[in-house]
């Protein structure tokens, strides 16, 4: 077996608590499919037959195949973890270490993308890399975010990503928050890669191919708790650290390293069949760089690669703005093969449903309503003379007559009273808007926190 997929679905969605306080993040409906359906669909399309899903107990109950609407026969191996302490992604990976027998493909449940996965995996395979990841150009969110007054909050701290001239080798990665004194780049990196492009407008898709020895390394080093926050920057730095000259007596070095309390990644990474690999590399007339006297890859054993998607869909649904944007995007036919209007929805004659709207199963849309650029969840009821524009209605929502909903997010089982006027609001789960109410740019939810 070549690769095992591990899907991280235990995150709490801490940046969109308004949505996730009632519905867990992996089950948030996007285009009337649970969020976790998108990465699972990606894996299935590409040919994976088994996935290990790491999630919480509550979500596990809901992860049955028919609920997930998966057509294929992909086997889901769900592993539960407790959420008492903050368990990072690396801790979760350590938790399932027993099941991992080959290289892993780690992805996050909030990734919606149509990337050609072979591009990332080919980099991993061809260069025998320790890590290969996916990044995409950051799209600016243009939709107004409901529930947020005034200007948008200051953007999150940027990521500085340095790639080499080919655009594939990852040389440098740091978050703005860690760079207090400015960006420093080690001279050894500049000597080896004199041409480096530093990009800031990139979104990390949280899709990583990791070698088996990296997982073993994680097991040994228990102080690493987050893949994105700690492991990846460590690997990127490790590419250029002074390599330990493996002496003839490997055992000696291993012992001395263990005494220091940290096992060296390179010793774990050295395979037994390195002799033949070295022989091949010696005889091959290929080099990844030209102009200096070193051999391919500068003799480094740890290599990190990145595939940067210039076009295509790639979203990480971890904020409200991203959630809304994703709902718009998935109505584009690339990701979902189902028709936008579910066949079991009952839509009356005089309604106008725009081409870019998605209507869920068993919906009832009454006369004289107009639905534009919106998503209506399953089992929702929309009465007469309602105007819904640019909005997202989750499952089981009831909208009485005469309402006007614009640019809002209505969570599941909410009831909007008649003639209500809702603009850029976020109505929480099971909330009730009074008839003739007017909500403008506010979040209506019960105060649970």
């Amino acid at each position, binding site marked *: 077996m070549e690769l*095992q997929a591990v899907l991280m679905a235990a995150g709490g969605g801490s940046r969109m608590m308004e949505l996730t306080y009632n519905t867990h993040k992996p089950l948030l409906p996007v285009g009337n499919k649970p969020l976790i359906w998108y990465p699972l669909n990606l894996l299935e399309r590409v*040919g994976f037959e088994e996935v290990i899903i790491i999630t919480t107990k509550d979500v596990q109950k809901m992860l049955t195949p028919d609920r997930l609407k998966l057509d294929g026969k992909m086997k889901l191996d769900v592993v539960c973890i407790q959420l008492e302490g903050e368990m990072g992604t690396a801790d979760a990976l350590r938790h399932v270490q027993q099941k991992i027998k080959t290289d892993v493909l780690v992805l996050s449940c909030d990734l919606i993308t149509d990337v050609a996965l072979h591009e990332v995996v080919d980099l991993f*395979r*061809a260069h025998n890399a320790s890590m290969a990841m996916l990044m995409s150009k950051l799209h600016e969110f243009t939709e107004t975010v409901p529930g947020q007054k005034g200007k948008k909050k200051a953007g999150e701290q940027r990521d500085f990503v340095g790639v080499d001239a080919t655009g594939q080798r990852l040389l440098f990665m740091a978050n703005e928050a860690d760079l207090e004194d400015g960006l420093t780049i080690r001279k050894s990196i500049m000597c080896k890669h004199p041409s480096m492009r530093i990009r800031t407008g990139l979104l990390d898709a949280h899709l990583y191919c990791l070698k088996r020895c990296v997982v073993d390394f994680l097991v040994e080093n228990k102080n690493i708790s987050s893949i994105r926050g700690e492991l990846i920057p460590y690997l990127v730095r490790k590419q250029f650290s002074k390599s330990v000259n493996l002496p003839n007596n490997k055992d000696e070095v291993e012992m001395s390293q263990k005494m220091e309390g940290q096992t060296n990644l390179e010793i774990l990474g050295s395979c037994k069949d390195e002799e033949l690999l070295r022989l091949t590399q010696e005889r*091959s*007339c290929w080099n990844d760089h030209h102009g200096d006297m070193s051999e391919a890859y500068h003799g480094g054993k740890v290599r990190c690669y990145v595939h940067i998607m210039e076009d295509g869909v790639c979203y990480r649904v971890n904020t409200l703005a991203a959630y809304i944007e994703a709902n718009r995007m998935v109505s584009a036919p690339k990701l979902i093969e189902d028709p936008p209007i579910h066949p079991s929805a009952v839509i009356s004659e005089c309604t106008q449903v725009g081409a870019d709207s998605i209507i869920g199963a068993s919906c009832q849309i009454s006369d004289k309503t107009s639905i534009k650029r919106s998503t209506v969840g399953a089992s929702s009821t929309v009465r007469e003379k309602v105007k819904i524009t640019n909005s997202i209605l989750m499952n089981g929502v009831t909208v009485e007559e005469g309402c006007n909903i614009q640019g809002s997010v209505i969570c599941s089982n909410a009831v909007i009273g008649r003639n209500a006027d809702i603009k850029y609001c976020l109505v929480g789960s099971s909330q009730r808007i009074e008839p003739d109410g007017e909500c403008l740019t506010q979040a209506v939810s019960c105060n649970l926190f």
Partner: protein
Amino acid sequence: MADADETSKQAERNTNVGDGIAVKKQDIARAKNEGKELTKDEKQRLRKEKKQQKKNKKDDKGESEHENVPLPPSQAVVQCQSQKAPSVAPSLALTPVSVCTSEKPAKSKAEQRAERRARQEADRAAKGKKGESAQQPPSGKSKAPPNELQPVVKRLPEHVQVDDPAAVRKLAKKLERQQIPVRSEYGYKVSLFSHLHQYSRKAPLTQQISIPSTVIHPYIVRLGLQYSQGIVAGSNARSIALLHAFQKVIQDYKTPPNEELSRDLVNKLKPYISYLNQCRPLSASMGNAIKYVKKEISNIPCLCKEEEAKKQLLSCIDNYIKEKITLAATTISAYAIEKISNGDVILVYGCSSLVNHILCDAFDKKRKFSVIVVDSRPRLEGREALRRLVKKGICCTYVLISAVSYILPEVSKVFLGAHALLANGYVMSRVGTSQIALVAKAYNVPVLVCCETYKFCERVQTDSFVSNELDDPDDLMVTRKGKIHLENWQDIRQLGLLNLVYDVTPPDFVDLVITDLGMIPCTSVPVVLRVKNVDQ
């Protein structure tokens, strides 16, 4: 018993001179094909049947066919007809036969003759496009001595028949059976080379296979990717990588129940080899390595336990690498050092692992020489050779191939590496090698080719058109001052980009071949091949 049959047949043959050339050749063919297994009665019966068949076919063709067409093809034509086994008839010389056998026998002889002549003219005109491929194999086959009882008609390899839709369909069917995706052709092909595959590096075969690959072993997928991206390049490197991957496959192999390892493992390897062939056409050295591995697997005794068998196979592969590649390199280097004297100026072309090894060894043995590295686009492999030699401490000069006639007066010897050595003494190597050999000959500079014996190949080729490899034409695009020239070459209908990989050098330009068996002239290659076959 069999010999008596032979002699009796011979006598019969000699008495039947009057029957015409056709029958004589028929007998020769029959003698070859039927062999010793059939009894006398069966042979007579078959002979009668064939005579009948021949008579029917002769009515269609008539005698003039044999007079018009030159002798060797007609011989081949007759042989192929009289063969029992159905032969795939893709070659040009055979098409007249197949066409005319499908015609009704009712046409008059004169009409048939006229038609045939017209067809032959058309075929001769089209011959330039198809190259010598069609004519050569039949003529090569028919010249085989009559006392060798082997099937003579060989199929044309599919990789030189890309413009024949029947062959392409056959290949597609075969790949489908093995569950390997077909790689699609890319770009406009120059008409002289339209019979070869041309792929794009940006469309790797991994697009079409599932990501945790189940049909193909992951190591083979990785290897195929490395071949197509050019990460593993060079005849020796490719062979070593291939054998390494085979070792991994054998290690992970588990004999299914009711199967024998010796038979099943060979069948397991076939789709992998097809896959690698799709990623990049196999080299001659890889072909020989595969033959060796298959032979070793089939020679495993049936009673052998799986673990033992696997261990034996792994050690066989290790030995092969050690003997044929590593030790051969040491031996060749020892021979070559005798030819390097102090004060020499040695010219090398591209990056040959063996030649680099020789030069580094000679430098270690304190010979004083300097090297001129000749390089050519688009691969620019000479840069890598330059780096390795300079790192060692050797004095080097670097030129492009366009300057080779300028620097040759200063050169005392030329060392060339080879991709394969063909059975007629031609050297198949990186494109540009024959150029250098030609210019060196003109300047009377000795040309020495270094090649291990495992690269010796039984193929025969006299030109670089018939069987070659077309690399990605986009490699020829170059970026200067931010502008990519030839960016939209596909839009220009009349423009074709050609990126050849190999060419063949005639033996007249090569003065010496240094192999691990010694220093031999180019024409001794068939002798070595024969000795090797006897040994094995």
